[in-house]
């Protein structure tokens, strides 16, 4: 489990996370992330057969409020926060494959 993370792994993970990274960053991050994963080898190697995972520290369940209409944030207030908005919608650059 303790294999270091390769430059190709870092490039792949950066792509999954939609992070643009330079070649220098890939080399630096590969070394730094490798050290952290090396440290985590103790956890990866533990025998935890039969131990359930904990996703949340306290036994609270999903919470739903009463299904009643109530005001939310004003649409214009929200759109005012956007880098670009148009016709009551967020404006984004073209999606791949679409005509411009």
């Amino acid at each position, binding site marked *: *489990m303790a294999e270091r*993370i390769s430059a190709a*792994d*870092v490039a792949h*993970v*950066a792509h*999954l*996370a*939609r*992070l*643009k*990274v330079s070649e220098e*960053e890939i080399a630096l*991050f590969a070394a*730094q*992330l490798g*050290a*952290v*994963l090396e*440290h*985590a080898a*103790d*956890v*990866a190697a*533990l025998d*935890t057969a039969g*131990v*359930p*995972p*904990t*996703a*949340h*520290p*306290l036994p*609270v369940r*999903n*919470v739903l*409020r009463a299904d009643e209409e109530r005001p939310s*944030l*004003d649409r214009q*207030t*929200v759109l005012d*926060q*956007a*880098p*670009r908005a148009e016709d009551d919608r*967020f404006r*984004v*650059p*073209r*999606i*791949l494959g679409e005509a411009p």
Partner: protein
Amino acid sequence: MSSGQEGASSPAAGLAAAVREGRASAVEVLERHLGAIAERDPEIHAFNLVMVDEARRRAETVDGAVARGEDPGRLAGVPVALKDNLCTRGVPTSCSSKILASWRPPYDATVVERITAAGAVVVGKTNLDEFAMGSSTENSAFGPTRNPHDPARVPGGSSGGSAAAVAAGFAPLALGSDTGGSIRQPAALCGVVGVKPTYGLVSRYGLVAFASSLDQIGPFAHTVRDAALLFEVIAGHDPMDSTSLDGPAPSVLDAIPMGVEGMRVGLVSELLAGVEPAAAAAVEAAAEALTGMGAKVETTSVPATVYGLSAYYLIAPAEASSNLARYDGVRYGLRVEGEDVAAMFGATRQAGFGAEVKRRIMLGTYALSAGYYDAYYGQAQRVRTLIIRDFEEAYRSFDALLAPTTPGPAFPLGAKTQDPLSMYMSDVCTIPSNLAGHPAMSIPWGSSDGLPLGVQVMAPALGEAVMFRVAAALEGEAPPAPVPAGGRR
């Protein structure tokens, strides 16, 4: 619960009592603190933003209420500094990140509403490690905060600005957030009290998310009583946070005078191993003091805590990688244009995030990715179960646990920035309580070369009353603490 006794020996409670009784004006109190900020914050850089005009208007409102014979509340006229990852309506909330540098939230965090309703005066937004990821406040896009005890050293982090603001006398109270120690560690390094409440006791509505199963908001103060007062104001159910606990929050001020006689306190051997001799000596002296006050103190073992650091640095980055996916240049925050939407995402996130945030996003994405999920993330979640079980076992024999807050005192700026793993080690003593969801707090105890140290008191979930009792008893017996320039006011 708003007895006049709150002011007995604590600066914030004392100010609130004076303002409520008309012996001091909120405006006067504020100006004194703004003066301290103007004098020394250019050197310390505790604040990303000092809210001079808003604070003055607010202080006048508080004084107006007193003049009309109304009670402004338990924090009347008390200046409070807010970590800059707590949303303030219309006021920049940057998380010390370029990606949110000019963002003005459309709403207030619940804690901001609660302290304001109690009469507090928000003085400003404090510096932090970007998105609360770090242990030194050096990961801020706006430059580091310096330790008021020695400006060549870090204040700790990630809530370093809030800790420094209290230590330097810029505000008697501050709020921070603690995901792996981000309140307790800087509190210890700056010589103030810092509290991480039970997960779910304080609403996280309006706290910019880092790792949602771990994040918790809590107070900084000079004294245990002041921290208890602020805790009582912010704790309690909030329908706007789905992880908020139902039921009343523990009342802690009433518990403080009860002392520790007959209480069983365990010294956690795993968290003492590997800390600097001065940090271990401080905890041992604190243990002796508790024994002297009638507590039964014994060394004990919480074995799985040795895996805490490794498990945390898989779980927290995994949650962060998901939480930070929202910063994509579409709805708010920075956008760097690209020729298509994917290029825009990549360019925005490259320009907007600093190196540590990128590291954590990638580490978390890796730990969650196909082929590694079971070995890393899934395994860390199982270790989390083991840590909770071992704590439960310890709390069958003990009412509270004692440990160092940090492995040592404040380190010089730059000492750990090139080696992320060595920086992560700063959190080794504080992480287990976050993984378990338990309350824990740091109080100043002893020093190392003139720099403050902290001891950590831990308790089971909802055990705040016991925790504050132990902390208050210790505070009363603590050796003289280092005082920074400025200090209390």
